[in-house]
């Protein structure tokens, strides 16, 4: 029976087989995407890495971008990283933008 582990912070940690199943990808493809830096391992060992449970979402996103946008995997990985960076920057930007509903 496959078990996932939960880090003391409460984050669910899962092995590569579980990540692959939840992402709907072949484990070999997951290993390849991990090597390309789509997600980093959060625990375990180099031989049996463990990932946060949201890693499956990132991996599935890379696969979707590759498929839907006609990218190769390197392009999909770059797109994922740029999208994550854009998200961060937009979050920061929203903090500095004056809200319309505030009195001037």
């Amino acid at each position, binding site marked *: 029976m496959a078990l*996932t582990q939960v880090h003391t912070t409460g984050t669910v940690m899962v092995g590569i087989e579980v990540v692959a199943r939840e992402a*709907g990808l072949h484990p070999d493809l997951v290993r390849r995407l991990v090597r390309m830096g789509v997600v980093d391992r959060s625990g375990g060992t180099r031989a049996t890495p463990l990932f946060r449970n949201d890693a499956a979402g990132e991996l599935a996103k890379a696969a979707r*971008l590759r498929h839907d946008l006609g990218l190769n995997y390197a392009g999909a990985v770059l797109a994922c990283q740029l999208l994550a960076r854009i998200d961060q920057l937009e979050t920061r930007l929203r903090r500095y933008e004056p809200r319309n509903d505030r009195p001037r």
Partner: protein
Amino acid sequence: MAVAYKDYYEVLGVPRDASADDIRAAYRRLARQYHPDVNKEPEAEDRFKEISEAYEVLRDPEKREQYDRLGANWKAGQDVSGTSGFGGGFGGGPDGGFRDVRVDFGGGGFGGGDFSDFFEGIFGGRGRGRASGGFEGFSSRGSDQETTLELSLEEAARGGRRRITLADGRDYEVNIPPGVRDGQRIRLAGEGARGPGGGPPGDLMLRVRLRPHPQFDVDGRDLEVELPVTPWEATLGATVEVPTLNGTARVRVPPGSSCGRRLRLRGEGLPDPGGSPGDLYATVEIEVPKQLSDEERELWERLAGTSSFDPRRNR
């Protein structure tokens, strides 16, 4: 039922005589613009599905030809369910001509999620239950998840109901059996990860971890506790109080008890729902006073001068 015609060429913004390369280029351009992973606008996903549906038809010469035959009639009205191209030639009903059409929804995208009634009316239903990333028709039980449930020794001993909240916000009222042991798992059926492709969810396992207790050590169902005694209690024997999980008990320290002697209190360990409870072992620890009054010193000196006891004699 009336099904509105969809102009796939218009969706992709290409002329009706567009080449395969033009269609692919138009799709890629629009996909980059509206892909739900890229575009967070609420209408982007619907737009992307529409684009994907159009591309699904126009990229395939066979399906494009079928669609184009319908297209000759589309100007008869937006509702195409009664046109000869749709109702007669395109198999809108159960006996229609395109039941055999296999639609290739190869791996991984959003686009193949749920195509329109128009599409399904022409090309038939599509596969369901696909996983998010690429194995068409793949469905399996979700994985089991495990988390740690920390309990005090007292909570583990008496059991009862306990509310727990996971980091992701899920909370549960958990029934803890009395006498639950360190490392034991409590199963919450069906509360694990969702099954890919609509498969049944796995289970959530709560692994019990007993917090260290300031007084008691745990050994299976038995408990151990230190029992400090005075030198004269250890020598002469005494009945003293010993802490238990439920309060205190009295135990007889036999005369002549040295350090390390274990005194058993039967049944004062952890309960066992399926059998007899464990025992509590009180280990004698002789403690001596650090400071003596004049009278105490005199008495100890008299004892030292009188006693012939030498614990090192036989070593």
